[in-house]
């Protein structure tokens, strides 16, 4: 479903993603991890056609990213970290606009939107009567997730999807992506909430400074490195091992 071959992105002299290569088969949930500035969002933006790679190749759903970008985009759903929406539109106007961009007929789109409204416990009145600018962060996130899944894509990228969702919505969302994977969809899940990644993902890819550090099943990786949890493994790999000692030292500066 996803094939990366030495994918690279440079911004001037800075290399954000450095010869990244991996393959993801259909139906897998992949946790895509890394510390801040590791190149996760840049990779996701390249894979969704938002950024042009500086070098390397990527094939998604059988389409070459550089030669057939529109075909890739039609088969991909993306929830960006920013959760950006057009704030001057109502929720319904926004979702209808997204549906129209994928060529979904209006009636089919409305029926689909209603299914999502029911799932996310949104009120139809809010969706029709309020501009997105007036929505809470959680409601806005639900609209963004809906807009990514509206066209039923076989491949979905989530960048911090739980940001702003309340506990119930988060539980529902985790169940949803597991079911989607069982239905054969491929999910790439980027997050800093590592215990969720450990529970939900079949496989974890960890990158740092644009390079691949580790790739494998979470339990095998944790056992292989004898780290106990994915969180501890992550901090070991990305230079966060001294964080507890540094926190203790810093806390001393607050003493009167």
């Amino acid at each position: 479903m996803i094939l990366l071959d030495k994918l690279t992105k440079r911004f001037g002299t800075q290399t954000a993603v450095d010869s990244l290569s991996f393959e993801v088969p259909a139906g897998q949930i992949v946790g895509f991890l890394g510390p801040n500035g590791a190149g996760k969002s840049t990779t996701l933006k390249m894979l969704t056609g938002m950024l042009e790679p500086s070098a390397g190749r990527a094939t998604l759903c059988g389409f070459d990213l550089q030669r057939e970008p529109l075909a890739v985009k039609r088969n991909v759903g993306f929830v960006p970290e920013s959760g950006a929406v057009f704030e001057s539109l109502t929720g319904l106007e926004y979702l209808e606009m997204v549906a129209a961009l994928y060529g979904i007929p209006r009636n089919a789109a409305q029926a689909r939107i209603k299914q999502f409204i029911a799932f996310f416990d949104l009120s139809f009145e809010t969706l029709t009567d309020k501009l997105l600018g007036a929505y809470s962060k959680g409601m806005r996130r639900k609209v963004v997730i809906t807009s990514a899944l509206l066209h039923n894509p076989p491949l979905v990228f989530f960048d911090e999807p739980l940001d702003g969702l309340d506990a119930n919505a988060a539980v529902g969302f985790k169940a949803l992506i597991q079911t989607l994977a069982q239905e054969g969809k491929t999910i790439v899940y980027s997050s800093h909430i590592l215990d969720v990644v450990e529970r939900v993902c079949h496989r974890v890819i960890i990158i740092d400074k644009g390079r691949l550090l580790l790739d494998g099943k979470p339990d095998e990786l944790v056992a292989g490195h004898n780290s106990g949890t994915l969180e501890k493994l992550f901090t070991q790999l990305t230079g966060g091992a001294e964080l507890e000692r540094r926190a203790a030292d810093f806390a001393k500066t607050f003493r009167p």
Partner: protein
Amino acid sequence: MSASENVPPILPEPAPPVDKTLRRLFLILFLRGRALRGLNRQGAPKSIGEKLALTLFFYLLMGCMALMFANQSVFALAVYLHAMTFAFLGMFVAASAGEILFNKEEGDILMHRPVSSRAMLWAKIRVLIEVSLWLAVAFNLVGLFVGFGTTRNWLFPLVHLFATGLEALFCTGCVVLVYQLCLRWFGRERLDSLMTIAQVIVSIAAITASQLLPQLAFRLHGALDVSQVAWWINLLPPAWFAGLDDAVAGSRMRESWLLSGLALGVTAVVLWLAFVKLARNYESGLQSLNETLSPRITARSGPRWLDRLVDLPPLRWWLRDPVTRASFLLTSAYLMRDRDVKLRVYPGIAPVLVIPVIFLLRGSMVGTGKGDPGFGVPLSGIYLGLVPLFGVRLLQYSQQWQATDVFRAAPLAGPMALCEGVRRAVLLLLTLPMLALVTLIVWFMRGSFSELLLILPGLIALPAFSLVPMIGGQGVPLSLPTDAAKAAGRSLNMILVTAVAFALSGLTSVAWSGGWFWWLVLGELAVVGTVYTILRFHIKNCGWPAETT
């Protein structure tokens, strides 16, 4: 990757065209505006039809100024109409193009959808041109009747509509071209600041032009034709389009035809460059907006020099209070860096400079001699006193208004120290340069140092004026949503303030002629001193204003 892994298409094949959807989207975004940002308590969608109708009505009213040209030649009327159209459209398109063409957030929303950058560019350009044409027609509607009434030639409305449409295309093309060239030559990081400077200049030029042109028109005395104008006027774009009107429905002189040719030729070249030749840059431009590198703050950007300056006397003494100092630096940074604040503040205070110049010009035109300074010089001084009033008021608004919660969270009993910081920033960074400029202009136009004394009453009133926006604990920097700025009844305030300024200027003028100028100064000192003390006492004891959003 094996072919068997290809997922069968779920969506209709072939992909449907998205032009209509994009056009509708950008039209809604354009007309509703992006200023809401969650600040609207109800958040109810606004009718775009209503908003458009109001905007068109406003432009129609502005176009009524064409009635003053009822007895002018076709060329004079056409120059006026095209100059005003050019100024208004230029300002409007320059202000909107950045949001429409290169909207940072749009990348996360649209660029991973099956939409090509070219389709997006064309939809945006189409919307820009459509709205420009509507506005241009609304503004020129009265002018069409005035022209028809003057010439009794049915060709005038037709050719003027054509020339106006061409001008709207030219304006839009120019702005798009400037954006593309800036992006190509200077890169994404400098695009924002360059375009902000360009927008501020265009906005100030538009305000200046709209105030000065009618005044200059009074000097034409109804006899202006294309062969009589100064050569440099023909270098200006409005004259080219006016030439088209004059060639078909006016004097039909050779010069008019030459100007018409210029209008057609230059517009064609601009459109080709903006929409064909450089359109390929647009995709890379949009992609570059998605680059997540933090913008570097170079040694030249931002008020680094100011950071050093506030550590030195006399600013160190003037900004002793740490809260006032922090507020001063915050306001200064926004005045120099923030696009939204710059676009509101600098064009907002431009009339303060322009209106006195008009009166100085008129004074010289109606023949008030060197011994009689007339009305212009004192008015310049009074208007100068209004700079802090407008400045502090305009600096209350920001798109990041929610960030000012930090002020209320801080252990401050009231906003006095914060407001004082803004006031001092406005005095130093806006009022002082304006004072230097006004002094130079008065000296240049009047050629007399002694007349500079007439600015004094304005300067005396300045400290009191600067406290007015802070009454009731208002004036907290950057703390109000930008939508409120639009609904703040600016025009009514402007009329009131103008009335006071005119009254005081008249009094000063009479006092100067009557030989009791210094008595007026003494009296004003006493009154302003009292008002200033009362205001300061009141503001010092003010708590935080109630939150309304």
